[in-house]
């Protein structure tokens, strides 16, 4: 969910804003999500010994 959009945006500016926000969102989540996924994967390989 995003904030209330700009009241009077021109169409091209609005497209740029949306693309920038999507790019930032993807980058932000990747920066924290990729290391976290790596940590979970590494831990799960250790957990495998428990059920092996």
């Amino acid at each position: 969910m995003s904030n209330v959009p700009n009241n009077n945006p021109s169409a091209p500016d609005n497209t740029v804003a949306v693309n920038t926000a999507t790019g930032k969102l993807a980058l932000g989540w990747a920066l924290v999500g990729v290391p976290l996924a790596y940590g979970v994967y590494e831990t799960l390989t250790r957990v495998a010994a428990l059920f092996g």
Partner: protein
Amino acid sequence: MGFLDRERTIAPAGFNRWLVPPAALAVHLCIGQAYATSVYKTALVKHFGASLTEIGLVFSIAIVMLGLSAAIMGTWVDRNGPRKAMFTSSMFWVGGFLIGSLGIFTHQLWLVYLGYGVVGGIGLGIGYISPVSTLIKWFPDRPGLATGMAIMGFGGGALIASPVSTALLKAYDPNSGAQGWVASGDAVGKLFLTLAVVYLVYMLFGAFTIKVPADGWRPAGFDPAKVKAAKLVTTENVSAKNAVKTPQFWLVWVALFCNVTAGIGILEQAAPMIQDFFRGPDGASLVSAAVAAGFVGLLSIGNMAGRFAWSATSDITGRKRIYMLYLGVGALLYTVLALAGSSTTILYVALAFLIISFYGGGFATVPAYLRDLFGTFQVGAIHGRLLTAWSAAGVAGPLIVNAFLDAQGKPGQLTAASYQPALLTMVALLVVGFVANLLVKPVSARFHEPRLDRDRPHEPAMEA
């Protein structure tokens, strides 16, 4: 440094609030390294020629400083906003690693106490509370989900730091292939320097990405009246100074303290405990060290997942009910663990996993619980004061377990029965916490901040 001021962090129209959780996570994933200190503990014991207790003190100092700094600096964090708080936290956290590495390189343990323990611990405390109040304001419709995401990072930070630190220690030590290898002090010092650089970059990313909502902002379609419909949720505000005068604050403090103490009881002893619970007729453990390590890993996943899943669930069930689950069902699970945990490993593992998920859930749900009771005005400062319960539990949990186990016998000779007194003590503690939570009622109006405009929900302007 004006660019750190709260006024410079107010989000423009159209800002996507889902950019805020990654900023919060960036900080929590870094400070979560505090749970991965066991990776280099033996190396430091050897390097300094110190005892395990002397090296363990580094972590204990850091956790005590976490509680103290969160309690003392909470109001400052609320007043100055998340960017300045995250920036300050990064300086302390990174500074702690730098001073600590100097202590390692120069063989001065007191510098490690000062660096990682005191300075780093201050960074932990400020960093832990810095994004909480902001997240609650961006997600008034799902505060449990929002704080769960951030505080999950504190659990997840160790999952990342542990394998990365092991790999770096191997890379930095030319003798890493040797039989019975323990990392050199030089390798640990270099590890500290590397972590300092990486954490600086990540935490500054968080600090410069975070934004606070403009006054009066609400998510699309959000109706505060629906939130107010829940009995314990207030639209009023209570200051941190007044909050500590209310019985509600201390009841939640007791509930958190009991929940954390019980969780730490298992976490501290996880690996030896599973080995002691399952012994053959000859007294040898049926659980190998590798399997025990896998169990510890599973608990880490449970700790992290519980922070997110249970806290998010609390948005639907309400905070008081979910705490009834953590403490009430937790007490039942602990009882089964104490009396029948040694019957099968599957049962033992499943019980421990659930108990640890409740432990994590308690941490992640409590900021939203405070928001429900005291409003958003100074929720960061109130949360900071409440974290003294964590510090106290960090001392009480291991003390209780170790005192009972010391009385039962020597490590390596303990059995499932040896753990019963400690585990049943934890059951009693959880029952105390359950009763405390049950007694939580809405805060009396005499503690509310005065409101100029009674017609619409209003918050005092300064807070982030």
